[in-house]
């Protein structure tokens, strides 16, 4: 099947890309001034991870919309939303983790109540709730509708996270934390490494999500297989004792 070939290729590319990013980031690119030794190297994975989380939630949102729209309603969009949100939660977790690791030497603390950080953490919890909702047992279609609507509402928070920095600035004169990293002058090998980071992490996202999606599909088709058996068994119930 070409589908699985594309998937395999994506996986290999993602792997190579991430490895290359690591290599470039760790050994090739220069240390930046103003950063504690070597920590700038987190630059090549931390922002891409945050980006992937956004992409994942966006995908979950889109799939949920498609699921809710009667003309395009198909259970595969629900699967997609679930798979994407799951990967999104993982990457949000990674963003939080790398951010904390970065923050410790840079700001001297693991955590601070910066709006961006807080809203990111909230996003994490928000989608944990979404996944908990998905796990509540029930009819697949019912679960799909419920979670699709939850995904719509949850996504409203994503732009809030994204804009929280600028809103904070525009609405609040003295930002408590200067997110100076944003002004860092990125050049040469650093820029290329960063770009590679974005691309390869996005590929990794695609690969992971596709796998999760396929797995969900397999589980469903297994259930469909099981359904035939279940139907026979149920019908036999009627014939049994009589």
């Amino acid at each position, binding site marked *: 099947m070409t589908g699985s070939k594309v998937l395999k290729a994506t996986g290999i590319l993602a792997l190579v890309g991430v490895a290359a990013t690591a290599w470039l980031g760790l050994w090739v690119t220069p240390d930046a001034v103003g950063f504690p030794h070597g920590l700038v190297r987190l630059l090549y994975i931390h922002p891409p991870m945050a980006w992937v989380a956004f992409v994942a939630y966006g995908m979950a949102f889109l799939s949920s919309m498609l699921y809710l729209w009667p003309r395009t309603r198909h259970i595969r969009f629900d699967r997609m939303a679930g798979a994407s949100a799951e990967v999104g939660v993982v990457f949000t977790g990674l963003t939080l983790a790398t951010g904390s690791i970065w923050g410790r030497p840079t700001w001297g603390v693991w955590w601070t109540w910066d709006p961006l950080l807080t809203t990111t953490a909230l996003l994490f919890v928000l989608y944990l709730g979404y996944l908990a909702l998905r796990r509540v047992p029930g009819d697949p*279609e019912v679960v799909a509708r419920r979670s699709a609507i939850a995904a719509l509402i949850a996504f409203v*928070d994503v732009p809030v996270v994204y804009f929280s920095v600028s809103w904070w600035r525009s*609405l609040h004169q003295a930002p408590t934390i200067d997110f100076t990293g944003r002004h860092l002058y990125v050049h040469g090998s650093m820029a290329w490494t960063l770009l590679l980071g974005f691309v390869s992490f996005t590929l990794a996202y695609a690969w992971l999500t596709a796998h999760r999606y396929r797995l969900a599909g397999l589980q469903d088709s297994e259930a469909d297989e099981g359904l035939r058996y279940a139907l026979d068994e149920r019908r036999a119930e009627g014939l049994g004792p009589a």
Partner: protein
Amino acid sequence: MLRDAWLVAGKDLRIEARSRVALNQVVPFAAAVILLFGLALGPDRSVLAPASAGLFWIAVLLSCLLATQRSFAVESADGARDGLRLSGLDPAGIFLGKAGAVVAELLVLEALLALGVAVLYGAHLTGGLVLAAVCVTATVGLAAVGIIYGAVASGLRVKETLLPLLFLPVAAPVLLAATKAWDEALAGTPSGGLGWLSLLAVFAVVYVTIGIVAFGPLLEES
């Protein structure tokens, strides 16, 4: 749709008028939240006065949670969702009606609470108009989210725990914006709160729209 909304809101408010749950239970609960959390965060007035807006909105948030739980508890017990679906009412109307009733209850609560906060924390309720506008828009947003998630969770055996989990994080930006707007207004610069107010208005519009659109699919399910 509006006729149905009116009918549903009337019914919910009539049940409230009879059972007095919002007045006798939710208002004292909100007061307890403010007092208690004020205590937990330390009795230091210099800490608490700036935090008064935040505490106020947390109390409102938790009360909104109770109000929505109640709003679905009065629907026929186990069959809440079945009942709503078989009722022949327009789902959008149901949504608007139930949200409207919760908004009405919460606004009364907020008025009472604001008095309390003013006294307790020595907060000055300046910029009254902005404060009131923030209350209304924020409450509409909160109630809309609450009712949507209330419907999502209703009929599930785990609704007691699921609803708070879903509601709280989504309501957080509303909380944040409302707190900021109040902070500005209380600090004597109500115009600084206008940006947050418009953000709240956006939230309210978005959530109400989602509710109107999504309540149909939500109830029609299963």
